[in-house]
């Protein structure tokens, strides 16, 4: 069968009433790779995962998982996937061991095999000490680990994790990343949705950025950073300072409009020849009399990619000057890429 992709989505759409949760999503994920699906809340990530895992039928478009149609061959798709959804879906009144053994039994393992597999996973996910306690007594992180372990019971070649580290403390997050790294090192294809740039950067071979149900950019993390181009000039107001006047001062200096994070008191400007700009910047600041607490010139992060490309109403308010419509804030960024042009 050669290099069959793990997942192919073509024009996937799903609406709930008037809301177009997913509005024509295309992407392709090579087998054995990790795809990070990045997007703000309500972007359509979970709906996409639900379509791909056979839980929801799309209104339009098609998707293949392991070469199988997710609608017409749903039963076969379910034999090749593991899913860990947005909530830790474990039975609070069963012990960790019973939860995993139950999933094993449902996959058709015999009683001893199901218990053995449960034991292995509990060991691997650092839950052995709590194995025979009911899951109700687990911490959020333990419950989440148990949930991810449950998705691995049948050693599925394709794994879907919907915001797996949401609600975990930094320690738990890093521990889970390490486990997922091991897993994908062994050839498992992983589709991971996340709101955390760091997580996508750390785990994903490729990223699709989703907003308002559409793929607005895709590529490797470094491609995405290159695509939004240049460096970033970051200015920080003194505590409690208003960043909007700073943004006015910076107007026309960079390759695009300044992006304002009002809460953090920060303005980020995309620039190309940063060092040469500093003289001009110093003059403008001196003329304006504005105070700057910190100033840095740096390479763009995935977070810049995310903020440049996504525009929920809240983000638009937070990141564009008030007198500028949101599309203008994005006008100078490279053309919004679609996942796969057809």
């Amino acid at each position, binding site marked *: 069968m050669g290099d069959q992709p793990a997942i192919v989505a073509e024009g996937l759409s799903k609406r709930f009433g008037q809301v177009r949760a997913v509005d024509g999503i295309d992407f392709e994920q090579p087998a054995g790779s990790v795809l990070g699906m990045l997007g703000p809340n309500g972007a359509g990530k979970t709906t996409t995962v639900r379509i791909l895992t056979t839980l929801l039928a799309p209104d339009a478009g098609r998707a293949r998982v392991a070469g199988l149609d997710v609608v017409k061959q749903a039963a076969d798709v379910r034999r090749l996937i593991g899913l860990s959804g*947005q909530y830790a879906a474990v039975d609070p009144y069963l012990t960790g061991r019973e939860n995993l053994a139950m999933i094993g039994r449902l996959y058709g393992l015999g009683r001893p095999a199901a218990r053995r597999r449960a034991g292995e996973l509990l060991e691997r996910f650092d839950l052995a000490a709590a194995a025979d306690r009911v899951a109700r007594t687990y911490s959020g992180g333990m419950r989440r680990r148990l949930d991810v372990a*449950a998705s691995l019971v049948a050693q599925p*070649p394709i794994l879907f994790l919907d915001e797996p580290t949401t609600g975990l403390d930094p320690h738990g997050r890093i521990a889970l990343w390490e486990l997922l790294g091991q897993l994908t090192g062994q050839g498992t294809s992983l589709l991971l949705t996340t709101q955390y740039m760091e997580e996508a950067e750390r785990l994903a071979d490729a990223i699709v950025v989703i907003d308002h149900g559409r793929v607005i950019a895709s590529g490797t993390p470094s491609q995405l950073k290159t695509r939004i181009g240049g460096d970033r000039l970051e200015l920080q107001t003194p505590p409690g300072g208003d960043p909007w006047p700073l943004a006015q001062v910076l107007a026309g200096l960079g390759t695009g409009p300044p992006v304002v994070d009002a809460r953090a008191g920060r303005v980020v400007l995309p620039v190309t020849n940063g060092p040469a700009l500093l003289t001009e910047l110093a003059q403008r600041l001196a003329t304006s009399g504005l105070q700057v607490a910190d100033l840095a010139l740096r390479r763009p992060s995935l977070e810049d990619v995310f903020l440049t490309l996504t525009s929920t109403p809240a983000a638009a308010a937070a990141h564009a000057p008030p007198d500028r419509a949101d599309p203008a804030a994005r006008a100078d960024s490279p053309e919004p890429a679609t996942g796969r042009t057809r």
Partner: protein
Amino acid sequence: MSTAFALPRRQVPALSQALANTGTITARNLRRLARVPTLIALATIQPILLVVLFNYGFGGAVHVPGVTHYIDYLLPGLFVLAIGFGASQTGVAVAEDLATGMIDRFRSLPIASASVLTGRVAADAVRNLFVIGLMIAVGSAIGFRFHAGPGTALATVGLAVAAGIAFSWLNLLLGIVVRDAETAGLAGLFPIIILFFTSSALVPVATMPGWLQAFAKANPITVITDALRALCLGGPTTRPVSEALAWIGALLLITVPIAINRYRHATSS
């Protein structure tokens, strides 16, 4: 790199898989029944209280022609009430499973999809068997007797369990449709309470005002209680039992296909 995704071989025929899946889900629900405090109370303390309170609360005032001990008249109706109360927890449980993502997990597994529902109904049946046994034991201690022999005693238990199966399906459907655990609980309880007090469960229908009698006679709780009572007390059983089975069958015929269909499209939100 070869990336062919080989389907794991399916070793068992569909029916045995469905039975095995149902067994696994039944075991899950029975464990919960034994561990969740509310469920333990509903299956133990509540049935005992129902028997004792109704018997001593109403027994002094209610005199049913042809019945010496009120408990003989009362117990069959209380079977239905206890089973109805218990079934409301089934709607709660399925709504909780929806909310916590358990249903998403189950639906993403390669299992017979209805087994999540049939496993719940089977566990409910086991609980109902226990509850009825407990009520018979408590009832016997305060004077209840089967008047028509062990065969009809078994038939009584069988019919009560069958009614419980229909109640469970109805509540599964309610839970999937209303999706909210508290609402599902109330939606399951209200009809039972209203139908119970307007049925022949506590007092003969003939003692009710005329306008209520028509309703009470058609009331499924009256029909099922009368059938159970006929089996317990002796006398003609064919007609009441077939009417009860007709109600149970009709309820199943409506609720089972809709519940399974709704389940197949249900996702957490």
